[in-house]
């Protein structure tokens, strides 16, 4: 009774599955589609490790039901690279050492990617504001901000 057929476009491909009502989007992505680049951090809507783009906007996929994504577009960190070429945001994190452990990185990059789509030349303040729902517990934010700036300059 509580199963639903859903069709979600994930990183450009249509994916269909039968899911339980209560299945979270992050579990759908990680466990059913095996897209494990999306991380589970706090699991309580705080940390942003599970950030994905839903119809182009960054959201916390631990706080969205898979059924809510039915008929919509999801982009995960696996969708950033195109034809073997890193997206400028990935290049930025690589060049500016925008990570240490890497746990927050997929979420940080997707939030940064969405910011640059809307605002190609953000100020430092705008970058810090945009990533304020993504927590990093090791590098601090200095290099993450530099990474987004790097991407903005080269995009």
């Amino acid at each position, binding site marked *: 009774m*509580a199963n639903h057929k859903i069709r979600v476009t994930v990183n450009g491909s249509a994916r269909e599955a039968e899911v339980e009502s209560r299945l979270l989007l992050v579990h759908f992505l990680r466990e059913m589609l095996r897209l494990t680049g999306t991380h589970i951090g706090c699991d309580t809507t705080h940390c942003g490790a599970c950030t994905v783009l839903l119809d182009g906007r960054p959201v916390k996929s631990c706080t969205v039901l898979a059924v809510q994504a039915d008929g919509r577009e999801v982009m995960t960190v696996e969708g950033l690279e195109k034809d073997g070429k890193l997206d400028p945001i990935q290049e930025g994190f690589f060049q500016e050492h925008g990570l240490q452990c890497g746990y927050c990185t997929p979420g940080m990059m997707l939030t940064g990617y969405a910011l640059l789509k809307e605002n190609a030349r953000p100020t430092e303040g705008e970058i810090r504001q945009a990533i304020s729902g993504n927590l990093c517990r090791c590098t601090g934010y200095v290099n993450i901000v530099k990474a987004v700036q790097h991407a903005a300059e080269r995009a």
Partner: protein
Amino acid sequence: MIPAPFDYHSPKTLSEAVALLGHLGEGAKVLSGGQSLLPLLKLRLGSAGHLVDIGRIPGLEYVKEEGGYLRIGGRTRESALEHSDVVKKRYPILADTAAVIADPLVRNMATVGGNLAHGDPANDHPATMLALGAEVVATGPKGERTIPIEKFFTGLFETALAHDEILTEIRVPKPPPKSGGAYVKLERKVGDFATAASAAFVVLGRNGEVERVGIGLTNAGLTPVKATSAEKALQGKKPTEAAIAEASRLAAKDASPSPDRRGDVEYKKEMARVLTARALKKAIARAEGA
């Protein structure tokens, strides 16, 4: 964390949604943005037999001035409110509020109607809407009815909405000339609930006196608090430093916060006083500039 099992419904129209809620009874909950409801279900602080998702019903997301009001569709995302031009220009108190709700990612899902209908005194819109004297529109089996915001919050996580009603619109009266509002929040970090927060809306009279004032407090009781004694003290007075100080002192008396990790009662009341003074000063400065 995984919520207890429930069934999910995704009606395509408002009337279908209302009929479903009526048919499913008290065990059904409305799912709007889900940013309060889903954490609650995941933590198993609450449960629901059925979720009725209003996410696919057209026409519930808008922000527009019409017929003497700013009309906000119930499912309007907080991020849309925050970035709305009319809000930034004419209702800065609402932009202040939306910008400090949770974090930018949560605001991409969270909805204005949900923030009110959840009935959580820690949410930010209730105080602002109390200060503004807003009304909410509830759509149920008999059609629409309007509820003044002062009558909307009936208890902790309880509102005047019947189980088969959906909050479909919020109406904020168009600001008169020489009016202004502000929302000031103290939070430990981005994404936290308010340690204390105050919303103030003032209308200045011909001689610069306070013709009308609304003050709302966040996280200052079991329901959102309208600081009526503070409002009364300021009404009709020139907004001098002393009058603002007195109103703010009374606002702290109107507050009855609970102690938690954010602070004890004395500290929270003191913060309610300080933040009310700041909100009033900002609101008055905006009214003078209007």
